[in-house]
Each structure stands twice: as structure tokens, then as C-alpha cells.
């Protein structure tokens, strides 16, 4: 028996690895191992105030810190009967766009592109692709700046809080963000075309199901219902029906299935489900590059992320205007009650993120988090299995198989710190 192991998987967030077991030409097992240690965060927030929960839950993940914060705030504010004022709402949209921009540009340009161009890292790429690397880092820096301005710190900023924001940024700072968003658009369009020009292998393609938040009539990153590529739309309160979980001994994250089948969430799901709604440059790029291979091949997640970067940059000026239109900074809205239940769903960069809370006597009585990467695990393993089979049939050597699997896995942009926290056993 032959075993191919990749551990640790580099350039992904958190500690993970891939194990393939082969018996001659037969695949015995393909596993995406989650090696990250357990933190039991859902149990840590029990007995804490909602305010404290927001500060703990966001620390599940550094890359999606604001999505965790946003999902927590939405779930908790529903439970507490809080309606946030419009200015706070626009600020949250801006911080969320900042995170999407940050995470997507980090992944596409710094983590994934080196694979396609044959380099071990973006730093090593700099010699030949100096301009691209410099611009990509500048774009990422701009996105980090948005996160810092809105949340108070680049990572784990506490400014977005229950009932609104502790402080609103200055006008000049916001106007500068608006200007920079316009300036970066050209590079983002160029970057999308660069990614779209890459040669994407097709031998492991297969249809799957896509899920994302239904934002209403436009493209977006948030909603109270979930759109499935099968045409169904499901209320986010029924999230458990969409994400039946099973425990796998090789993974600190539980795997999710929908009606017994694997599915995909994330940029590719959003663009596949909602891409027709894209306007402006993002709409043009979508029309130019999208084809039905995007429905079958996870590598196109990189392409979808690039399109979203363009979309986010085009959204920012309008959101900044919305914030600036409201002169007065609203005070924090106080809870209407001390008991309740709420599910908050948002699109984290890697896909739909659910935070579900029960509050009693002003303290968290129970919490459940369903994390995007956990939802993708089954599909990641499915595509890796298809790829291994294809490559064995082609007679590929171990190194080639290893690289191909890393590319597939990384395309999902798995966030391993996150996924160790979605685990939960439901006993019926």
C-alpha cells in the first residue's frame, strides 16, 4: 500500500493536512485532516454577557474576525430585540466589504496565485511579477485599512458592538477610502483577467450544490434566508436542515451534508448563484469569463473571488456616501429584553456563517456556530478523490498528485481555525 501525505498544508490558515491511501491503483482513502487543536469556544461563551461573547467569538478566526463578529451581533441583536440605526448598518456593510476585499485579495494573489505560476510563495514570485505582487499587497493593505478604520483595529477590533459602534470614523478618512476604492479598480480588473487566463485542469470536474445568503435583489453578503442552487430558498432559522453534521475521527471539524449530499459555500457559490445580478465592471467580467465549468470545478473559486474584489471596490463609494449622509452619530441601542433566541447568518469570505444564541437572564445560555469550511469539507474530499483517481489513471507520480491536491484544497481557501469550532454532536 502506498500513502501520500501532505502535512502541514502550507499557505492555508490553520493547521491541516492531506492523506491519500492507495492500494495499487485503487483509492482506499482520501482525507483532509484537520490537525488544529480544539478550543471549545461554543462552550466558553456560555455564561458570558452578549457583549463579552462578541469579543470572544470573533477570536475564532483572524481572517474572518469581522464576519464572526457580524454574525454574532446579528444573532444576539435579534435575540435581544435590538434594531440598529441606519448609520450603524451602513458602517457594518463597509466593514464587511473591507473584510471580503482583504480576505479575497490575500487568498487570490498571495496564497493561490503562486501555485499556478509555479512559485513557493508570493515573495518568491516578486522577482518576475514585481508589479503584480506590489499592487496586490497595496490592495490588501487598503482593505486592512478599511477593517481598521471601521472596527478599531486590523484584527479583532472591538468597535462594532452590540447596538451599533463605539465610535464613527472621521469624514476625511472615509472620503479617502472612497477615493482609494476607485483607484484600485483598474488593478482589480487586470487581476481578474490574469486569473481568468490561467489554464485550469478539467479532469476532476463534477456538478455540486451551491449555497449562499439571499441578500434580496442584488449581489451581497448577508441575508435572513439561504439560496440553494437547486432553486430552493430556506429561512436561516432552519439552518440545521441545511447543514446536517457528522463527526469524522480524522477531523477536529465536523462535516456538513445537505440531504445527504456534499455542497459548496463561498465566493464560487455566491457568484454561481447570484452572478447574474452583478453590475458595472464586475458584471462585465462575469459575463466575459463565466461558463458552466464554474459549476463543476472548485478551482474557479479563485476566479469568483477576483470578481468579488471588483464588486466590493465598486460598492464602497456608495456605502461611504450612505454613511456620510447621516450627520449625527447614533448612540448604542440598548437591549429591549434580557431573554431570547436568534440566528445570525452572514457571508464570511469563505461562505455562509451561522451564529445561533439562546440568552437567559442577560447571559448566553447556549451557542452554536456553523462555519463555512466545515460545510465545504465533504466537497473538498470529494474533489480530491476525483483528482487522485484521474491522476492515477494518467500514471502521475506522487509529487504531481500532491501538488494537485494542494491546489484543490487551497482553492477552497480553507480556514482551519474556524472549522474546529463548528463541531457539535446533536443527540436525538
Amino acid at each position, binding site marked *: 500500500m502506498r500513502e501520500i501525505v501532505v502535512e502541514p498544508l502550507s*499557505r492555508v*490558515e490553520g*493547521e491541516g493536512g492531506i492523506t491519500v491511501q492507495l492500494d495499487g491503483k485503487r483509492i482506499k482513502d482520501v482525507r483532509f485532516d484537520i490537525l488544529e*487543536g*480544539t478550543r471549545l469556544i461554543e*462552550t*466558553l461563551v456560555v455564561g458570558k454577557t452578549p457583549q463579552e461573547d462578541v469579543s470572544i467569538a470573533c477570536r475564532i*478566526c483572524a481572517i474572518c474576525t469581522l464576519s464572526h463578529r457580524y454574525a454574532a451581533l446579528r444573532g444576539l441583536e435579534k435575540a435581544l430585540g435590538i434594531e440598529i440605526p441606519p448609520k450603524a448598518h451602513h458602517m457594518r456593510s463597509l466593514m464587511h466589504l473591507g473584510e471580503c476585499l482583504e480576505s479575497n485579495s490575500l487568498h487570490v494573489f498571495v496564497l493561490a496565485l503562486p501555485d499556478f505560476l509555479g512559485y513557493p510563495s508570493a515573495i518568491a514570485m516578486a522577482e518576475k511579477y514585481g508589479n503584480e505582487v506590489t499592487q496586490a499587497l497595496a490592495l490588501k493593505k487598503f482593505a486592512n485599512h478599511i477593517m481598521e478604520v471601521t472596527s478599531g483595529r486590523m484584527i479583532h477590533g*472591538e468597535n462594532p458592538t452590540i447596538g451599533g*459602534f463605539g465610535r464613527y470614523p472621521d469624514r476625511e478618512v472615509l472620503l479617502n477610502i472612497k477615493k482609494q476604492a476607485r483607484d484600485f479598480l483598474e488593478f482589480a480588473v487586470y487581476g481578474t483577467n490574469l486569473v481568468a487566463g490561467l489554464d485550469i485542469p478539467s479532469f476532476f470536474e463534477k456538478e455540486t450544490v451551491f449555497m449562499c445568503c439571499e441578500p434580496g435583489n442584488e449581489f451581497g453578503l448577508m441575508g435572513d434566508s439561504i439560496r440553494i442552487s437547486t432553486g430552493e430558498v430556506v429561512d436561516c432559522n432552519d439552518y440545521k436542515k441545511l447543514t446536517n453534521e457528522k463527526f469524522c475521527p480524522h477531523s477536529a471539524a465536523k462535516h456538513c451534508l445537505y440531504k445527504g449530499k456534499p455542497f459548496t459555500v463561498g465566493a464560487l457559490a455566491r457568484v454561481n448563484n447570484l452572478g447574474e445580478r452583478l453590475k458595472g465592471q464586475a458584471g462585465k467580467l462575469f459575463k466575459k469569463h463565466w461558463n458552466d465549468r464554474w459549476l463543476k470545478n472548485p478551482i474557479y473559486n479563485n476566479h469568483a473571488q477576483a470578481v468579488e474584489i471588483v464588486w466590493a471596490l465598486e460598492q464602497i463609494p456608495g456605502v461611504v456616501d450612505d454613511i456620510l449622509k447621516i450627520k449625527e452619530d447614533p448612540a448604542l441601542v440598548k437591549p429591549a429584553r434580557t431573554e431570547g433566541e436568534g440566528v445570525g447568518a452572514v457571508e464570511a469570505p469563505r461562505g455562509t456563517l451561522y451564529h445561533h444564541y439562546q440568552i437567559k437572564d442577560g447571559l448566553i445560555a447556549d451557542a452554536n456556530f456553523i462555519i463555512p469550511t466545515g460545510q465545504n469539507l465533504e466537497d473538498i474530499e470529494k474533489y480530491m478523490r476525483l483528482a487522485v483517481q484521474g491522476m492515477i489513471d494518467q500514471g502521475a507520480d506522487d509529487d504531481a498528485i500532491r501538488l494537485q491536491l494542494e491546489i484543490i484544497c487551497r482553492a477552497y481557501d480553507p480556514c482551519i481555525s474556524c472549522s474546529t469550532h463548528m463541531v457539535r454532536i446533536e443527540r436525538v
Partner: protein
Amino acid sequence: MSQEKKSVGLYGFTGCNGDQLVIIHSEDQLLPFFDSANIKSFSLAKSDNDNSELDLAFVEGSISSQEQAEHVKAIRERTRYLVAIGNCACYGGIQAMELGAKGWDQRFRKVYGDGFFINRTPIESKPIDVFVNVDFYLPGCPIDARQFFYCFAHFLQDDEPVFPDYPVCAECRWRENDCLLLKGELCLGPLTAAGCGARCPSHNLTCLGCWGPMKEANIGAEFNLLKEKDYSLEEIKRRFRMHTGSGMMKPLKKLLGAL
């Protein structure tokens, strides 16, 4: 030339990777950073990592499995200096909130059932100095980029960095914020090591203590003040242990023992 460069490794254990990301987020310093040393291992940023001898290792995250404990010991054996970066490494982080000895088993079972792992033997999260000798602690959740590069530069020169020993309170005053503690809010500014620039109080939000305790923190004074303001022992304890586990609880327990 490259022979003279110091060998450096960055490692992440249990946490959110926030501290390593702070480094990756420092776009302007990133190329010089990779240039000024031989970065032998930094798996969040690059794929050609190895296990060679090091002059300097930065370790992020707490230790939450026996395998991680072995790994951090192995890193210790092949490095001259070992620096703990971030609260998880320094104090165990939020996942080491000190909720009680038996609590962890129960909480583990609540989350994972009786499931077992084929690739890990989980243990309750602990700071890395429970397992290895740590040469320097760089706290924060996450760390501050300037403090990191300052620390990095010093170790490249075989020199130990020196950080100011004053509380967040001092930074807060420099920024001319209104004192939240005086307004009756549960702010940990007086006890918490400076370094963040008083971020939260500058946003009208209380300090949560995410930089850990400063060395000479007057826990007793703050404790009495909060009691006067009618905070219950439960509330105070909950806040003290939230971000730095044992970091603030150790002195508090001592104090409560003495009371």
C-alpha cells in the same frame, strides 16, 4: 552573505493565526523582513519549510494536544531563542479561561461527544511555557506589528528588547479620553500592559485586558474599586479571566486568598 543571516522560524499552534497574520498584514515590512533573515519556516506564508537549526523561533498559539506539546519541545531543542507571540502562547488565550479542572472534560464531550481523533490526543489548552522555556513574551490579542518588528530586530542583534512597564491607562490619558472606570464601567485599563495604544477606550469601549497584566499591576486597588461600584465577585472574575486565563487570575486568587 546569506550565511551570516540569522535563521528564523514562525510556528502556529492552537489559536486563530491572528499574530502571524499581523506580520503578513505588515505589507511595507514584509519584503525587508524576508530579506533580513533566513526565514526557514513560516507555513502560513510559504510552502518550502524545513526543520533546520534556528537562531530564533516565534511561537503563536496555545498547546492543546500531546502532539503539539512534543512539537513545541522539538522546536525548543533546535532554536537559540524562543519568543511567545500573542496571548494564546503567553497565557493560553481565551481557550484557557480557567473554567475549572473538571470543566474541560465535560465541555470537550459536549462538543465532540465520545468521538475520538485518529491524529490527535487533545488536552486542555495551556500556555507554551508550561512545556518549554520561553525567552521572551510578546503579548496582545493580536500582537502589535511595531512591537513585533522591534522585538525581531533586537533578537537579530542578540539583544533583548525592553518594553515600557506601564498600563493601558497611561496610553489612554495621553489620548485624552474620558476615564470609563470613573463613569462606573468595568475597565481593565489600570491592570493591563500597554502596547495597544488604548484602542478600545479611544472608541468609548472598556479595556478587556487583551494585552495581559502588566508586571506591577495593583490588582487589589482595582478589585476594591470595582467592589465599591457594586460589581459582584462573579462579574469581576469573569472579566479578569476572559482574555488571559491564568495571567490575571493568578494574582487575583492570591489576593482573594489574602483577604
